[in-house]
Each structure stands twice: as C-alpha cells, then as structure tokens.
C-alpha cells in the first residue's frame, strides 16, 4: 500500500523525497482557519485486524474512552433536552443572576434575564451537534466530490478545480463565514451550509491526494480495462480505499464546525430563535465583571465536546490509518 501521505500534496512538486509527516488535513478550530491537523504518531507497525487495533488503542490510550463517554453524554443530553427540560429554554423561569449552586431548582444558575443555564446548555448541545454533523455532511459531500473529480481525471479538470480550492483556501475563512451568513437569514440550515462552504476545500485537498495515488493502482487499472465507467470506478472502486483518512478528517470537521457555530452565535450571527452555547456566552459577556459563570459554563461545554471529538479523531487515526498496517519502513 502506498503510504497515506496527504502532506505530500501540499508541496508535491518541490520535495517529493523529503520525509513528510502524515497530517490529515482538516479545517479546524479557531473559527475559520484552515489548520492541517497533526494526529498522534502512528504507533503499532504490526499487521493486525481493525478489531484488534480498536482494542489495543483503547487499552493504550484510555483517554479515548473518556472522549467517547463525553460525546455520548452530550448526545444524550441533547436528544433528551426536550424531555428533561420541557418548555422554551429562552423562557424566563426564575430570579436573574443566580450563581451556580445558589438555588437547587437551578443547579447551574440563571442568566441576566432569569433563564435557566442548565436548560440552555442541554438544548445548546442539540444545536451544536446538529450543526456540527450537518455542516460536516455537506462539507464532505462537496469536498469529496470535487477532490475525487480533480484527483481522478487530472489534467485540465484538476488544474481548474485545484485553483478553485486554492482561492477558497486563500480567503480568510471567518470573514467568508460572516459574508455567507449575512447574505442568507441565519438559521440552523444556513449556518450549516455556510460552515460547509468554508470547510470543503480541506477535504477536497485530502480526497484529491488520495484519488491521485489510488487511481494508479493495479485494481483500478483492472477495473478500467474491464470497461467500467469513471463514475463506477470513482464510487465503487476508489472511494472505499480512500475513506479511512476521510473518516478521520470527518470527526475533526464536526469539532471545528461546532467551534465555528459557537463563534458565529457569539457574534450574534446565529439562529436567533434557538439557544446555542455561543449565543449564551455572547449574552453573558456584558456581565463578565460580576457574573463570569454565564460565559464560563457554556464555554466549558464547548471545550469538552470538541475535546471529545478530537480525542476520538486521534484514536480513529490510529485505527484506520493504513500506514499502521505497513511493516517498518
């Protein structure tokens, strides 16, 4: 198997012989910055099955289990929020400025208007995860399609699409995000689309590099000589082999989409009809001096969720990275 090495795509013409690390390229974190993601170094070199590797990664790196637990907890809270905290989380339910622990009825306190923070965080979990997953799905669809076409066909198609990817990557992402949200009315759907519009180039680049490598392999040649059309070769021959690094990227994309959504909501550009972690921090900002818990608590929820996703992404990288299957190089 050729080493999974999207890093080479960065500067492929200049330095093929220079040792490149494997950093799966992802658009992550600070709202709108394209950040190639450096995963943990691949550890096991022995040839083992995926099942065995899942177990060994779990055993060697128990933090992954913490990540899975946090993500499961947030998902359940988000899903059950309408049952656990019925009613509008934006409704005023008690005395304002209650500190966490001051009143048993509102364990995490209330905000400046007397809205329950715990209910807000629970409902916010659902919004964050929904936007994160939807934005990633759309971003993957656009990015993988464009990357696959560019990588598979090469030539002029590749030149034009690569330039398009480059232009999108050159534009400052958060500014683009603000532009798109300003054009469309903010809602969960438009936020997801906007985030996808700025995150697809990273995936496209990764997919392009994968497709370029895999299309030269024997089984693709064989498929071509059997008379399979490009669509069939791309979808059923190459895509399955290109998936592992894309899956790793996807978990990091959910994390970065959550960060972007929270930053947009913090700036007041989120969906005004729902409560989100970012908007909670935004509305608490005015009272930072006296009631900083209003900002601290939702931010902590963001950090935990994103950390969980990144821990899982690291583990996925160890499990799925095909390079781990190779013998010592």
């Amino acid at each position, binding site marked *: 198997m050729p080493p999974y090495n999207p*890093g080479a795509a*960065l*500067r492929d013409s*200049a*330095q093929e012989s*220079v*040792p*490149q*690390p494997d*950093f799966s390229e992802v658009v992550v*974190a*600070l*709202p*709108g*910055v*394209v*950040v*190639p*993601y*450096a*995963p*943990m*170094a691949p550890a096991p070199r022995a040839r083992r099955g995926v099942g065995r590797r899942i177990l060994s990664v779990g055993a060697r790196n128990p*933090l992954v289990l913490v990540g899975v637990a946090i993500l499961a907890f947030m998902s359940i809270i988000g899903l059950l929020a309408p049952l656990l905290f019925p009613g509008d989380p934006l409704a005023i339910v008690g005395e304002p400025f209650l500190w966490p622990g001051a009143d048993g009825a509102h364990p995490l306190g209330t905000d400046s208007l007397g809205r329950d923070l715990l209910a807000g965080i629970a409902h916010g979990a659902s919004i964050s995860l929904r936007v994160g997953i939807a934005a990633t799905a759309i971003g993957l669809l656009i990015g993988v399609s464009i990357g696959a076409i560019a990588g598979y066909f090469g030539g002029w198609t590749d030149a034009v699409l690569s*330039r398009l990817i*480059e*232009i999108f990557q*050159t*534009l*400052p*992402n*958060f*500014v*683009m995000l*603000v*532009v798109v949200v*300003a*054009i469309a009315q903010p809602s969960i759907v438009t936020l997801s689309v906007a985030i996808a519009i700025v995150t697809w180039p990273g995936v496209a680049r990764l997919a392009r590099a994968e497709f370029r490598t895999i299309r030269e392999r024997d089984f693709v040649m064989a498929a071509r000589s059997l008379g399979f059309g490009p669509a069939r070769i791309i979808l059923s021959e190459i895509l399955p082999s290109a998936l592992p690094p894309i899956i790793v990227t996807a978990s990091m994309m959910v994390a970065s989409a959550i*960060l972007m959504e*929270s*930053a947009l909501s*913090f*700036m007041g550009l989120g969906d005004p009809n729902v409560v989100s972690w*970012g908007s909670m*921090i935004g509305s608490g*900002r005015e009272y*930072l001096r006296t009631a*900083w818990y209003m*900002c*601290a608590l939702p*931010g902590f929820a*963001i*950090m935990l969720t*994103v*950390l969980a*996703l*990144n821990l899982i992404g*690291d583990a996925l990288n160890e499990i799925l990275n095909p390079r781990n299957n190779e013998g*010592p*190089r």
Partner: protein
Amino acid sequence: MSALSRTARIATKTGLHAVPTALGIVMLSFVLLQFAPGDAVDVLAGEAGSATAEGMAEMRARFGLDRPVIEQLWTYLSNLAHGNLGWSPRYNMPVSQLIWERVPDSLILAGSALVLALVIGIALGAVMAAYEGRAVDRIFSVLSLVFYSVPGFWIGLMLIVLFSIKLGWLPSGGAETIGSSATGLAALLDKLRYMVLPVISLALLYVAVYSRLTRVSMIEAKAQDFVRTARAKGLSEGRILLRHVLRNALIPVTTVAGMHVGGMLGGSVVIETIYGWPGLGRLAYEAVMGRDFGVLLGILLFSSLLVIFANALVDIVHGLLDPRVGGRDAAV
C-alpha cells in the same frame, strides 16, 4: 545554483500567481455579494433614519451602485489595475487609506501570535518527540489537544476575567492607553501590556497545531536513514535531534505556518471584537454588516496577497532548510 537566482525565480512565480488569484477572488466575491440583501446606502439610510427616496437614489448614483453588476465589476477591475481600491461610502474615505490605517495593528497582533506560536509550539513538539511515549510526552500531548479544543473567544474572555478583573494586571481591551503621551520605551511597554492577552488568545490554537505537527514530523524523521548515519558517525543524541531531526521537521511546520497567515488576519475577527483591537478583521466584519463591499473586497484582496507572499517566503526558507529543494528546482 545560487540562492539569489532561486529567490528571483520564486518572486517571478509569485507575481504570476498573484494576478489570477486576485481576479478569481474579486469575481467570486462580486457574485456572492450580489445575493446580499440591501446595500451600503440602505444601511446608511437606516442608521440616519431620515433619508428620502431621492436622496438615496442620488447616493447610489454617486457611488455607482445603480449600475448593472457587470459594469460595476468592470469599473472595479479597471480601478484596481490602476491601484485604486475605490471609495467607502460608509467611512467616506478611500478604501486603501482605511485599510492602511488598520494594517500596522493587525500585523502586530497576527505576527506576534504567529511567532509566539511557532516558538512555543516547536519547543513543545521537540520535547514531546524527544520523550516519545513517556509521561512528559503524554501530558504535553493532552495539553496540546486541550489547547486545540478551546474556543479562542472563550479563552479570551476567561483571560480577561482572571488577569483584568480578578488580578487587575492587564487591560481588558483597546490597543493603547488613550490620551497617553508616552514615547519611546514607555509607549512600547504600554503597547505590550495591551497585546499580551489578545496575542495569547490568538496563539493558543496554533501552539497546539505546531507542537503536534513538530512531534509527528520529528518522530517520522528519527526513523530515517540519515539519522542512523548521523548516529553511526558518533554524533551526540542532542546534536542529532537539533541539527538533523528538527531541521527536517521544520519543513512541514513552516509550510503550514505560511498557510495560517491569512487565516490569522481573518480569524482574529472574534479576538479583535473581544479586546476592541482596531484591526482588519474587525473592519471586515463591520464592512459586511454595513454592506460596504468595497472595503470588504479590499481586505480580502490584501489578505490573499499576504498569503501568497507568505507562501513565497516559506519556499525560500525551505531552500535554506533543505538543500535538495533548491537542487531539484534547478533541474526543472
């Protein structure tokens, strides 16, 4: 192959590259912005609260906003060819002047954050790689993952709570003491006090990225043949790590850092908002909100040219780090 001719060739390539990218950005932005509801005149009229239909039509005519899109695009491009970025109806001054006023503060913030992130990130990554698999490595790895997961605006607010509100050590916003007549060293120290928190907030994410990248690259490089050779030559372990392994690992790190330059300018919108820092990110945000698209286009162009310039710089640095890069280019 002299370093000079290599640099000259990179400069030519960069120049040729900048033109189509700039064109692409202008056209893409023009198309996108046509979908935005309202224009600068609408926003101005809304803010003034006392605009007549005739007055608004007259303003649109004055700024050319009533012309067809293609004509506006053509006017913009021909102005651009003459180095003219247009006039901002909102601020009532030339766009280029508006941008130049913000450039120093923006570059200071992004540049300091980038340098800080590179220094700390590479140092952390080198330590992690040197102690691979041991406790130090594990602790720093988790720490960098936490840095990687913290929203920048939230850590910014929390730093304000701790250092400005609770401890009172540092100012919570602004770029310098207003009305201060300090000069020289005192002015510099004053500026530094205002920079500490925004720079840390902006740099944290990049510290995580660079430390992880350095770690992975160094561990990869350690397995290479030339390291075995160096060890066989009897070089000390520390010298091997610094001169051979780290030097190689710097190539991917600088590549990535070059890509971050534009993101740092645009990505600092939120940080600039929190700290009231008068930079380009904030100006871009205000331009979108005020539908002052000439200003927005100017900033997008400026930051993308900066990215292209940074990439060229990275190319030159690579030639210095790895002699093979230069040799290969010479053969092409």
